[in-house]
């Protein structure tokens, strides 16, 4: 049996890469463990090793091919005694091997269209701020006719930091792996080269240490952007973030404030289990003195990060590893700022209000698409900022739809959904036609195994079912 060599994944979140170079040619004999090709991703370069012995019968993806999806067959190896010519004829059209039933949605997306096309397709015009009728944005955030450029959330965050660093010499970036390695998730790509080691600082491995150092630098008048490799590791730094950054302005009688941004990926990625998947949104949301931002799109990530860096208060900026590689249109403006504390209506509707933020928006928008097929028009609100919370936009929506569903990957108890539902009960109880419903992660630490992880996270189907339940409609 000829065997396919598949495009390998360097990490669970890698979706595609570049086939940089073949080191073997068709007809070469390969042994198990031989390096046969090199591939590049946005994170690193890696070598592809042959797993089986035989003859490299056919190269299916040539040198220099970009955007090769993980698990695409890239070559065929004919085994001992097989005819390489016959094997190469039997070479399959690129398709997925038998093992990845766990991610059918992603596989489908890869086969049909590049991710950015998909993202654009699901992003309604209102998300760009062209919805003057909505209470969320009386003024459009982007002037009519502005050119849009497609970029990933990762690039948008990098650009936001670079623009603010060019604008203000007091801004600097600090964290583990941010300089020489260009960021563990490549969010600080190119910053060391442009701004030098004085302003892009690799730190020793001590979150408590460098968060405290950042607070000290902020109190001394600098504007630090502190990157945590993940907010899971920021648990170490909680004392500095809560007891010092959030409270010093208050405790000093207003004399000394702490203009600092703590940023990094928050919540689940893929296959990283209990200690790397925790969603801390609700924790920071609880603390006066902090601002808490959790964007979904690249445009919001850019505009809000720029606002966060200029803010005179400590801002906890919660990113998401899954979203880093997703592309969205971003307005091409010299200085694009989105004010902290304003929600937006990502999709208008009149039957039920879905409130989400960060990756929760992915579930909410997909659920809205499914609901539309059943004639249910969901209004999807992207909260964008968790504290201060733009509850007015949610209230206005609920007054229209009379039904509320919140979506978050974090746990239900004392979660952000609980806060939203309570505020709606306080301010719009008489408009509710059903008790609000929360869609959340299951009440267990995040398991590692793919099947368990999938089950522990919210599903689109659960959002659809929740929306139908507040509409008193049977779930099909």
């Amino acid at each position, binding site marked *: 049996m000829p065997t396919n060599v598949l495009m390998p994944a360097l990490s669970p979140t890698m979706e595609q890469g570049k086939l940089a170079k073949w080191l073997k040619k068709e007809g070469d004999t390969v042994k*198990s463990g031989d390096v046969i090709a090199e591939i590049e991703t946005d994170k*690193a370069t890696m070598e592809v090793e042959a*797993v089986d012995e035989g003859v490299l019968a056919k190269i299916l993806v040539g040198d220099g091919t970009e955007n090769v999806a993980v698990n695409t067959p890239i070559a065929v190896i004919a085994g001992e005694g097989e005819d390489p010519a016959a094997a190469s004829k039997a070479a399959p059209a690129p398709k997925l091997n*038998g093992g990845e*039933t766990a991610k059918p949605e992603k596989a489908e997306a890869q086969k049909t269209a590049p991710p950015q096309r998909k993202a654009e397709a699901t992003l309604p015009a209102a998300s760009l701020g062209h919805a003057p009728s909505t209470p969320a944005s009386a003024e459009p955030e982007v002037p009519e006719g502005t050119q849009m450029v497609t970029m990933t959330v990762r690039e948008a965050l990098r650009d936001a930091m670079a623009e603010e660093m060019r604008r203000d010499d007091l801004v600097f970036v600090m964290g583990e792996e941010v300089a020489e390695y260009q960021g563990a998730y490549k969010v600080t790509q190119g910053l060391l080269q442009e701004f030098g080691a004085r302003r892009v600082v690799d730190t020793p*491995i001590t979150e408590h240490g460098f968060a405290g150092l950042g607070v000290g630098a902020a109190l001394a008048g600098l504007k630090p952007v502190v990157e945590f490799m993940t907010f899971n590791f920021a648990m170490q730094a909680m004392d500095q973030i809560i007891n010092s950054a959030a409270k010093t302005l208050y405790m000093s009688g207003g004399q000394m404030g702490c203009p600092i941004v703590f940023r990094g990926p928050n919540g689940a990625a893929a296959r990283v289990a209990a200690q790397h998947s925790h969603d801390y949104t609700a924790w920071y949301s609880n603390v006066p003195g902090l601002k808490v931002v959790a964007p979904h799109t690249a445009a919001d990530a850019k505009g809000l990060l720029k606002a966060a860096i200029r803010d005179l208060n400590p801002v906890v900026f919660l990113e998401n590893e899954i979203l880093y590689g997703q592309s969205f249109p971003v307005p091409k403006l010299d200085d694009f700022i989105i004010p902290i504390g304003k929600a937006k209506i990502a999709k208008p509707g009149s039957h039920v209000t879905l409130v989400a933020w960060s990756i929760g928006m992915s579930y909410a928008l997909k659920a809205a698409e499914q609901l539309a097929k059943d004639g249910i028009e969901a209004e999807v609100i992207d909260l964008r900022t968790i504290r201060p919370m733009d509850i007015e936009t949610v209230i206005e929506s609920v007054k229209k739809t009379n039904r509320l569903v919140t979506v978050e990957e974090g746990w239900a108890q004392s979660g952000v959904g609980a806060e939203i539902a309570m505020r709606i009960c306080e301010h719009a109880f008489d408009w509710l036609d059903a008790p609000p419903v929360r869609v959340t992660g299951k*009440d267990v630490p995040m398991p*590692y*195994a793919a099947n368990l992880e999938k089950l522990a996270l919210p599903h689109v189907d659960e959002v659809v079912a929740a929306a139908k339940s507040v509409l008193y409609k049977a779930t099909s």
Partner: protein
Amino acid sequence: MNDQPPLSLHVPEPAVRPGGKPDFSSVKIPNAGSVPRPEIDVDPESIRDLAFSIIRVLNRDGEAVGPWAGLLSDEALLEGLRHMMTLRTFDARMLMAQRQGKTSFYMQHMGEEAVSCAFRKALEPGDMNFPTYRQAGLLIAAGYSLVDMMNEIFSNERDPLKGRQMPVLYSSKALGFFTISGNLATQFIQAVGWAMASAIKRDTRIAAGWIGDGATAESDFHAALVFASTYKAPVVLNIVNNQWAISTFQGIARGGSGTFAARGLGFGIPALRVDGNDYLAVYAVARWAIERARRNFGPTLVEYVTYRVGAHSTSDDPAAYRPKTESDAWPLGDPVIRLKNHLIRRGVWSEARHKQAEAEILDGVVTAQKEAEGHGTLHAGGKPSVRDMFEGVYAEMPPHLRRQRQQAGV
């Protein structure tokens, strides 16, 4: 107003970056056998120089020399060689399995096999390790099942950790291997706490904490030294200095203290540096420190000087931050080859037997892998039970989790 010259910030830099010529001239290597072996009840003040030297047993000719030599029989050394070779083979197969998508993540030990394999042989049953992610030799040298290790890596239906934990973050209470934390350094202070509890209970068991060079920057490391020093906890505090914390060279965490071992001096804790690529030296120092702890003389800080030959994990590429040929220039050599040469010199081993052993070990690992894969891999075959997902959150399952499990239909 102020005529002082402006201040400037010091940022340490590694000697060489990619494209440069590897340079380890700053790593001072004393001759094998040249460092004295003190009594275990020695006054720590009198052995401060051991924190700046390197204890070595195997010399360049493959002979075991000096006061730290002579502790292990031929049989024990042959077993040690087999453990290190097994770990290396296991790593190679699992790295390949990761490339094949059978698991999402792997971390190999290449170059550091002697540290955990030799340390384990100096412990007694009942002693507890608080390991990091690069001490699987503690399990292999304790006879843990390779199939179970792979079941954990593949997260399959026989995964002893039930699909809950990341690959390589093993756990075995029975073999004195505490559940590995993915968050760095947290377990260094826990090892001290465990050891103090053993003393409070008037038990005879001791603990071993493990940490990497980079993570010594964490507060937990410093807290561990404070408590170990104050209460003379029966613990061995191990620092594996493999030169690199992902892309960050060891000088960033070490600062101006000269060596990581020297961190112990301010706390009055005996601090030893040892050649981490020398199985005999690692064993001798481990035995010395473990005996000190067991006889109630208190903690020892040990720095293993070694080199991480491979990547930090399957998620990084060392070529981005250090010269590709740097590992070839590492002056302490390869732990497997050094022990092999020593055994040949002793007349109990040969190149031919070594080749044969390599083939046998590979065969054993491949057989284990076939068995483990029969129980499933990350994306194919048997999976952990969904029912189990709701177990173990609490000692007893509360009603709301029972409800969630019912809603999940399992």
